[in-house]
């Protein structure tokens, strides 16, 4: 466990293997909610929170339940189970304790329940920080940190996309590509430019 490890995780999760632009996970919310910056940032915050928390919880499930019983092949379904339960629980708690926050997150929390980016980071953690079914030293911290970083990468992509789309609202765009077609084109160009980070090697 070293600072360099964490830095590597940070740069690879945010830039090189950006969850949206390189791994192509969580695209539905990326296209749907990136029209304005404010809701995009709200969604990013929610995603960041959920990826971090689910990284932590799934680490426990994987380390203490799936690995000892030799059930690692069940990780997809059990991770989904955990994430869905967790998000539901969070939604209930927020609704009860803070109606203002609940209204702020609104539909975004349930949307995250089935967001593949969240499952993606959990699966990724179990791939990267477990070697031959054994946890590498400090894997818990790595997992949690990767959860944060994937959320950050998501937020970065959302911020870029919403900024571009807000400006495009003022442009005279042909009707045929207005809105979603244009969003797809922009997303692909952004993805290509993020490909440039692939040259980084550590």
């Amino acid at each position, binding site marked *: 466990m070293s600072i360099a490890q964490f830095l590597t995780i940070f740069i690879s999760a945010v830039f090189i293997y950006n969850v949206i632009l390189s791994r192509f996970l969580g695209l539905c919310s990326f296209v749907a909610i990136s029209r304005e910056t404010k809701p995009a940032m709200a969604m990013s915050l929610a995603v960041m929170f959920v990826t971090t928390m689910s990284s932590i919880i799934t680490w426990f499930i994987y380390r203490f339940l799936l690995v000892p019983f030799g059930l690692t092949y069940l990780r997809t379904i059990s991770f989904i189970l955990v994430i869905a*339960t967790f998000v539901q629980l969070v939604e209930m708690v927020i609704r009860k304790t803070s109606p203002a926050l609940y209204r702020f997150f609104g539909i975004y929390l349930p949307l995250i329940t089935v967001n593949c980016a969240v499952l993606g980071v959990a699966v990724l953690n179990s791939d990267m920080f477990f070697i031959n079914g054994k946890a590498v030293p400090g894997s818990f911290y790595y997992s949690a940190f990767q959860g944060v970083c994937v959320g950050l990468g998501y937020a970065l992509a959302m911020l870029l996309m919403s900024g571009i789309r807000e400006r495009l609202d003022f442009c005279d765009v042909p009707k045929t590509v207005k809105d979603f077609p244009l969003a797809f084109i922009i997303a692909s160009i952004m993805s290509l430019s993020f490909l440039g980070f692939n040259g980084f090697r550590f």
Partner: protein
Amino acid sequence: MEILIPILTLGLLGLLFGMGLALASKKFAVKTDPRLDKIVGLLPGSNCGACGGAGCFGFAEAVLSGKMKIDKCRVSSDVAKEEIATILGRKLEKDLKKIAVLHCYGGIRVKDRFLYQGLKDCVAANLVLGGQKECVWGCLGFGDCERVCPFDAIKMSGEGLPIVDANKCKACNKCVLLCPKKLFTLVPITHPVYVACSSHDLGKDTIAVCPVGCIACYKCEKICPVDAIHVIDNLAVIDYNKCTSCGKCVEACPTKTIRRRE
């Protein structure tokens, strides 16, 4: 035996989470007003947004908290509104019913300045030097309002002017927003007198192109017993808060610009 472990693990996991969620939903249950569901049930549910709320559910919440009047919903029937009022134990405050009124009576009485051969569409025609009519203030007569009206209340007459059916008009404001000449306003249905002109040109310029335009002669302003009509910027304007619909201005108007709705 080997197959039992995964089944049991996953089954127990699911059971545990399910029970946890069930308990949590009890513990963190948010009490909602039972009246809310009833009101939502009575609303049309088409989420048209004409009330200004975020769909019917948003409207129901606003009504419940007293932020909006029940009568803001233009689509639901009077019976439904009464029922909502009784659920809330409130009296139904009725907004004055309004209808859209066209402030122009030119139509085919106004000649064309040039031959317009573009799209048969007011918005498009208006882009060309403000339309083909001699009067740049008046109705272009291509019937955009007829097409935009969702309630089928506007029909183009043979005179090249839209006619609003007072029974069908729901004052949804669509024609008001669309008309490129801004000729429609929403007027209380109780006031049948209106000024059928929107021209701010000088009187002599108006009468040169339109026989029924307002020439700003001030006769209506002088004869009005309640001081409800004024000539502002070469155009008579009625203040519907004061107007008693006595009809004296209708008789006095030399160009028959001020009219009474049938």
